[in-house]
């Protein structure tokens, strides 16, 4: 189980890196999205995977049962999901603008702003 999710995180990270390194700006965005997923899954998994029950206290209980999933990690991931969504939306528009302004997908033109 854990080994499998570790593998999943690794595959996400590898595919994200590949997309970042090999392709144009559009795929760089896809890569960033994939990396963000990898990081979220890492935070979620590193805190320990739950057994299927939720971090919600049942109606008749006063506290969570033993072996509950880590609610703090879930809260962190939730925040991270939202933040990476905001950043991704911003990037997407940036891509659109770069394209509109330079007429390329924006990366080769970058070299010209340097020297």
């Amino acid at each position, binding site marked *: 189980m854990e080994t499998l999710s570790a593998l999943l995180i690794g595959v996400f990270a590898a595919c994200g890196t590949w997309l*970042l390194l090999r392709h144009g*700006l559009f795929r*760089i965005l896809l890569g*960033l999205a994939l*990396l*963000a997923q*990898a*990081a*979220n899954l*890492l*935070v*979620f*998994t*590193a*805190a*320990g995977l739950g057994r299927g029950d939720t971090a919600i206290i049942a109606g008749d209980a006063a506290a969570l049962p033993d072996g509950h999933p880590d609610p*703090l*990690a879930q809260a*962190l991931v939730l*925040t*991270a999901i939202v*933040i*990476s969504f*905001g*950043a991704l939306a*911003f*990037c997407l528009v*940036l*891509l659109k*603008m*770069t394209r509109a*302004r*330079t007429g390329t997908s*924006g*990366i080769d*033109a*970058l070299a*010209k*702003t*340097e020297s």
Partner: protein
Amino acid sequence: MTESTLVALPVILPLGLALLSWSCRRSPTGSRVALIGGSALLLALAIPLFLVVREAGTPLRLDFGAWRKPLGISFKVDLLSAILVAVSSIVGFAGALFAAGETGRILWAKGYGTFFFLLFAGINGAFLTHDLFNLFVWFEVMLMSSFAMLVLGRRRFVFEGATQYVVINMVSSFFFLSGLGLLYGKTGHLNLEEIATRLVASSSDPVILSSATLLLLAFGIKAGVFPLYFWLPPAYPNTGFATAAVFGGLLTKVGVYALYRVFGGAFGFLSEYTSDLFLAIGCATMIAGVLGAASQFHVRRILSFHIISQIGYILLGLGLLTQGAVAAAIFYTVHHIFVKTNLFLAAGAIAATGRTEDLARLGGILKTSPLLAILFLIPALSLGGIPPLSGFFAKFILLREAIREEAWIVTVIALLVGIVTLFSMTKIWAEAFWKETPRAGAPLPQRPMLLVPVALLGALTIVIGLFPGTLFAIAEEAARQLLSSNPATMNPIQ
């Protein structure tokens, strides 16, 4: 006002000010008043905070939501945080004055003031918080507002630089989040002190070392160290000048601060691994930055590369990690924030009168605007380390510590880099001010409004130069407080 209110307000007040700026964005005058008034208010808040922390001698704490320390989010304001908040408020005020003179109606209407204050909410939050995930959140606030400010003007060449900036910083966030997730998994805590006390027993655990590596990468990218600084030079030179000044003065320094906070304080026990690494990174950063600057002929590109080389100097303190060295680095940071902001603002004034930033096409400003010439010379010489300005003492103290630790190679490199820095500054001076007036047309008359913040920061540089001892004493105390949060040396009763 209670102390805890004083600690919370540097983060909360900018949020309110941002909303206020948003509501008056349609009127340029209203926006200007809100920007200047608001940043003055922030300054009026940061100075008492600094004084209180200095008076108290121990860090102030604030547990948000009244949840005691490990449960909720805690701010811990030691002297280092307080100094940096105060310094960034001063820079913010100067930047606001310049922005009020520089920014046009369209930018105000798009919410320039709002982003400005949100940026400071992020910066202050990052300086004050003592919680790793909260630090991540403030970093993101800071980055998103800087992204927005970067592209606000929609200038033609902004987007290329902005793309690099955004993409690389998102990769940095990925590293940060991964490292922090691993640390949380390992320790079950997010508060830096709690993490540190749990880690000290197992300092060579692979998870600890690799999460430390990931955090180092994340902060290193934000700080602009070698070889992770690529996003910086293309991004800064294409914005408004006030924006570039605030970015250049503060953003990288937040990354450096995070490095000091984590690797000097909580992770200080890793110093057997990190100290040589930081010395090496510091030297490489100095050299790469200064070579980059020497090869440029565009005022703000030169300045952008010098940010990098100066970051190298500041990192030396983290490599040496003695109290004196850290104090020297803090001194250097304060000096550098003022001077760099000042240079960017002066560059703005140069561009406003010379109509270009290209050194080959500038010239003759000495005749038309001698005051600007002097005001540029102050931070320029200070950056080059000429006495009796602040930069001289900053370099002197740092080098003395390096010599004391017998880091000879570092010393020689630092001296050489200093000479090249001076060379770069004289290059700008000679080309923009001294050279004959270019054919393209005489410089425009200077707008005095733009010189006020330049003069303000210049005066601060001189004051630091005249009374270096006072600042150094404060920096030493701040260094002591920072290093005492290293769990390896921490008093067990605390």
